[in-house]
């Protein structure tokens, strides 16, 4: 990782929405650094604010009731609050996006080739013929068989996995420095997911793009990410190198998240659960957001814990000794 000039540097990003029922803090104090060629994962359950965070960075949160604060620097340049015109070269150009549902990310009324050509021409001065040639190359690169013929096919003529390949080809068409993938494999079957994850890993190496991958699946994080940030109710609760977070998780929410995943390699009688539900964003307490569901809640938890630590950070008041004790007890129990 090159910490000197991160491709993306996010500081204290907050996004809130004024609703009739009150203020919803969808993202609350997110920090993120993405280095060159680095894959950073953001993991959390529905409503944790992971997608809103990414959309707000690119100015895609257009709600009149939204207020966004903090700082988002892309290659050292502040991009939060840029006008649409200033943002245009970034979106789809220097920053590519891959969405969860490849059917809604593509328009059904034009051929996939037309859609890729449009994007390339928007961001470069290639002629139509050159852009089409490039589209064929891209489709071949992402593994679409018979790309020269398929370039004129429409989205409905592709399977789900092939459609996601088209979306990836489109995201890569302008050689982005940063690729934001929002649940890129959630809609896909597991063998197709394996194909797409392998493809993304390969493209990171050949194109040198940094990747931010948003997912609810700790397994995908473990396969792909160099570093990971765990979010709960809009707030980051733990972040650090993937190996450390998965092997030595520090936050009780991360323990719950990892414990709740049924593993292939073992069959145990009961899964660890996190009591209760993900809370309504209107009811997030001032103190630690996870406190109402936490087994280890203390008096101190009425205050919001800050993110502490160096490379591996966490926001929890448990002291180190107690944490190690609980974690080894949890390992016993498994």
């Amino acid at each position, binding site marked *: 990782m090159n910490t000197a000039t991160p491709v993306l540097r996010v500081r204290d990003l907050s996004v809130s929405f004024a609703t009739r029922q009150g203020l919803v803090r969808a993202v609350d104090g997110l920090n993120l650094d993405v280095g060159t060629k680095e894959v950073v994962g953001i993991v959390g*359950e*529905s409503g944790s604010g992971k997608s809103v965070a990414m959309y707000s960075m690119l100015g895609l949160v257009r709600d009149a009731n939204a207020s966004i604060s903090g700082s988002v620097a892309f290659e050292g340049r502040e991009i939060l609050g840029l006008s649409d015109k200033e943002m245009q070269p970034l979106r789809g150009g220097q920053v590519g996006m891959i969405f969860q549902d490849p059917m809604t990310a593509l328009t059904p009324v034009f051929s996939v080739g037309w859609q890729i050509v449009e994007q390339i021409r928007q961001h470069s001065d290639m002629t139509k013929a050159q852009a089409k040639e490039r589209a064929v190359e891209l489709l071949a690169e992402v593994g679409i068989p018979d790309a020269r013929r398929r370039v004129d096919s429409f989205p409905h003529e592709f*399977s*789900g*996995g*092939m459609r996601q390949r088209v979306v990836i080809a489109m995201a890569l068409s302008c050689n982005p420095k940063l690729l934001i993938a929002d649940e890129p494999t959630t809609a896909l*079957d*597991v*063998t*197709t*997911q*394996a*194909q797409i*994850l*392998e493809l993304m890993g390969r493209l990171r190496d050949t194109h040198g793009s940094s990747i931010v991958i948003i997912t*609810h*699946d*700790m*397994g*995908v994080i*473990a*396969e792909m990410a160099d570093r990971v940030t765990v979010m709960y109710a809009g707030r980051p609760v733990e972040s650090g190198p993937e190996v450390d977070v*998965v*092997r030595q998780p520090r936050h009780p929410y991360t323990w*719950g*998240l*990892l*414990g*709740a*995943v*049924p*593993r*292939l*390699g*073992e*069959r*145990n*009688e*009961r*899964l*660890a*659960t*996190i009591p209760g*539900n*993900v809370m309504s964003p209107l009811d997030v307490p001032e103190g630690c957001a996870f406190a109402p569901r936490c087994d280890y809640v203390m008096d101190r938890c009425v205050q919001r814990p800050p993110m502490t630590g160096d490379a591996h950070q966490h926001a929890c008041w448990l002291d180190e000794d107690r944490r190690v004790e609980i974690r080894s007890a949890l390992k016993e129990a*498994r």
Partner: protein
Amino acid sequence: MSDEVLLRATDVVKSFQVRGGTLGQKKVSTAVNGVSLDILRGETLGIVGESGCGKSTLARCLVQLSAVSSGSIEFRGTTLTGLSRRQLRPYRHEMQLVFQDPYASLNPRRTVGDIVADPLRINKFGSSAQIEARVKQLFETVGLDPSYVRRYPHEFSGGQRQRIGIARSLGLNPSLVVADEPVSALDVSVQAQVLNLMADLQDEFQLTYLFIAHDLGVVRHVSDRVGVMYLGQLVELADADALYDEPLHPYTEALLSAVPQLNDGTEVRRERIVLSGDVPDPAERPSGCPFHPRCAYATEECRGSDPALVEIRPRRFVACHHPLNSSTSH
């Protein structure tokens, strides 16, 4: 689990007529292609497979929600296939379903109390006071506050809705519960709660589960035996531990290797096998073994003939000309 067969399917085929091609000619798409299996009383039989493999269609055929095209289904020794709707009635309450989408499977215009009471009313469970008491009892059984009966589905979270769906399925004391992707729409922490609830209910009411899912980790966790489907056929069926520890069908091997793993030292790393291509269209089924176009071990024999599901070792069924890890190893 006993050795008593609760439900037996023999060579079940379900095909649909579909329009295809530029001129809209009719084609036959075979969603389930000759599946035979036994569900034993008290067990959880898991069925895994990717979208379009026919696992949901199979489930609908087994409980007679869809008529089979051919083959037979026996429930406790009685052949259900060919019975009229009226004749099927006495068996319906024995076989209940829990559906995938807790948003679509509950009528938004009715209270959750009514939704749970419906099967009781239809089957004339008792007086309205008895039904009301039963509904409250069911709510408690699945871990919901009985005072919620007058609320509407939109007032509940996904996990709570799935509990309501489960309560509805249990009202008439079924012996077989068919759960079609019951947790795939839920967040992982809530998913664990629902899976634990289903395990508790199975112990309490001696239920038999047919559990259909695409998530191999979930299926491993809940199942005693697991069947793997590909393109409408059962390609492997075995005890869960044996199947996961030592898959015999190349498709099972690839499927297991494709699951992203946490690598936190608790799991054996499998070598990733990335299959090429997609699952074929069930209307244009390949010759021979349905998996041969994507199989790394395919031979001339696989292109020519479709292997039958055979018990190659006690309790291990596989449909492959060249099963893995066997004496005729690669």
